[in-house]
């Protein structure tokens, strides 16, 4: 493409001018975002991107598909790292894509000045297609970056939300917080069973105070956990059943009568202690007794 050659040459020739104008525009737009991004950083990103864009045009990418073609690979790499880092820094998708779109104004100003009207009409189409493609690519990678963050957080939540605590020698507690789905039940079950082996506990209290809804599926998951613990030789007590949950369980006809249930963790703990042969007694307060006499 002869045209692409000339447009690439033209841009290369005026690279400094375009860059200066573009950075000025960006800094105007991003003035609110100054706290998130350093000026030097923006300049560096602009310079790298413009350089890569012109190199892409020079290597014959004018007619190629920007989201797949080889000449645009360096530009794409640049944009993915940029949009990912901006996604992490808390930029909106619009702000991130504007990075590419804002190049149009200074670039077209130069092209218009240097080319005849007819040439300009033709070239502007090529440039618009490329820049739009790159802008959309940026938005897409931004989205991907956000999705990665979400899935990582989900994973972290999964790991965080299932602690098994030892209340007393031989008594474990598993405070469940949040909804129980199959994936979580698996994690809960594994960590509980491992803790039973590690501590040699014979009683585990599953506290469901933090479980918002108990439907048939959640109840089934709970019963599975209880059955698995029983197979290992440990008994389970379910505690923290709120009045609404007791109502739901009965209305749904869920059969959990095989498992001892208690309203509060304290009640369950008292039962657990008596099962392992321990009692809690009040210490004799000598002074109080004397006063009473």
């Amino acid at each position: 493409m002869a045209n692409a050659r000339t447009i690439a040459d033209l841009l290369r020739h005026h690279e400094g001018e375009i860059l200066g104008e573009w950075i000025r525009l960006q800094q105007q737009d991003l003035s609110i975002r100054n706290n998130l991004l350093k000026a030097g950083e923006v300049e560096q990103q602009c310079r790298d991107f413009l350089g890569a864009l012109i190199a892409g045009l020079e290597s014959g990418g004018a007619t190629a598909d920007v989201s797949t073609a080889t000449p645009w690979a360096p530009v794409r790499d640049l944009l993915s790292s940029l949009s990912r880092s901006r996604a992490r820094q808390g930029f909106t998708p619009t702000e991130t894509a504007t990075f590419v779109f804002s190049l149009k104004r200074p670039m077209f100003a130069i092209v218009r000045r240097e080319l005849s009207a007819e040439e300009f009409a033709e070239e502007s189409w090529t440039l618009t297609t490329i820049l739009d493609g790159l802008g959309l690519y940026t938005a897409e990678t931004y989205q991907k970056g956000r999705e990665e963050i979400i899935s990582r957080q989900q994973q972290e939540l999964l790991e965080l939300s299932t602690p098994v605590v030892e209340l007393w020698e031989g008594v474990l507690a598993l405070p469940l917080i949040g909804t129980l789905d199959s994936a979580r039940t698996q994690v809960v079950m594994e960590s509980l069973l491992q803790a039973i082996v590690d501590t040699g506990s014979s009683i585990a209290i599953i506290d469901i105070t933090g479980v918002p809804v108990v439907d048939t599926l959640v109840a089934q998951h709970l019963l599975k956990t209880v059955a698995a613990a029983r197979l290992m030789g440990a008994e389970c007590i379910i505690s923290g059943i709120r009045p609404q949950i007791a109502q739901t369980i009965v209305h749904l006809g869920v059969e959990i009568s095989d498992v001892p249930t208690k309203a509060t963790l304290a009640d369950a703990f008292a039962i657990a202690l008596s099962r392992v042969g321990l009692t809690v007694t009040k210490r004799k307060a000598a002074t109080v007794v004397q006063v009473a006499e």
Partner: protein
Amino acid sequence: MERIPILKMGKFLLVSIQIDMDDRTAMTLQDDLTGQIVKHRAKGVLIDISSLDVVDSFIGRMLANTAAMARILDAETVVVGMQPSVAITLVELGLSLKGVRSALNVERGMELLQRIATDIESEAADADDEN
């Protein structure tokens, strides 16, 4: 064919499964065990499966059946040392081994058997007193 040894400890029988059981070994074990319960008039059977990493539905059912047979022969069965992964597999297979008692390790299992045996004896003594 490999045979799983059955050891007699007082009133109880101890079976420690340390090899991966195939179906024939399992059936032979069932035969041997029922025979030994009758021969020694055992009051309890302790099956240690701590070395088993994999338990399929057949072995799971075999354990449940063995417990049922032992109960008919007046002996309680305690399965001890089940691995967490095995417990999860059995539950997922829908085999919660109802009627089989379990304990964390051999020591706890023996305690449990002894407790059951004393309970049964004292019940029998009470019944005698009433008569």
